[in-house]
């Protein structure tokens, strides 16, 4: 049983390793090089700003909800 398990793990590793290497964006392969160029090229910071753009807007909405409704949601009650 142990031999079957270790054999399966070795076979899976042998099968997956080349895929992992060729699909790894930080690995030294042609695909990895293309991916790095695509991600960390001259437009990295502008792309980062574009990708993150919805979040400052969402935070502004949340800030308006928090600071802009001073009395909203408050009610007096007796206990």
């Amino acid at each position, binding site marked *: 049983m142990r031999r079957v398990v270790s054999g399966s793990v070795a076979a899976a590793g042998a099968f997956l390793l080349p895929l992992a290497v060729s*699909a790894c*964006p930080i690995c030294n392969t042609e695909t990895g090089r293309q991916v790095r160029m695509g991600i960390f090229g001259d437009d990295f910071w502008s792309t980062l700003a574009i990708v993150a753009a919805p979040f400052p807007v969402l935070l502004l909405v949340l800030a308006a909800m928090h600071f802009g409704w001073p009395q*909203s949601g*408050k009610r*007096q009650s007796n206990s």
Partner: protein
Amino acid sequence: MTHDLNQKPLVIAGTFMGIGLGGFFDGILFHQLLQIHNMLSAKYPKTSIANMEINMFWDGLFHSLTYTMTLVGLVLLWKAGARRDVPWSGKTYVGALFLGWGLFNFVEGIIDHHILNIHHVVESHGQSVFDYAFLASGLIFIIGGWMAIRSAQRELQPRHQ
């Protein structure tokens, strides 16, 4: 004794979490299961492994931000839970979750699909009815969430010890 009941901390916490969970829903259902709506698919069409990996990187970065929103929401929820002036209302919280989810869909849809055009819901269709359905879902969630919060506001009860 008089208490000020304040549902705002719970609403803010729920909205943060709704934005984060809405982002995760989008990422899991659209990006991963259906493999559409990837972050830069208008610029890098998914026609090669390299382009798919570039999209995957920016998807991951986007989801890091939704993760941060969820984490902030969780911290705020914990703080709200410790406050006796914050009524522990399920309706308020679920309403806020939908409000956040709707805000996410609406803001992300407007900015990414219609202003920046960096991707669309179904890239092969370009800007299509799916993008408008995405915006509509955002509006429906915002209105539904807001109505639930307003409705809960009328039923707020002080917390029991």
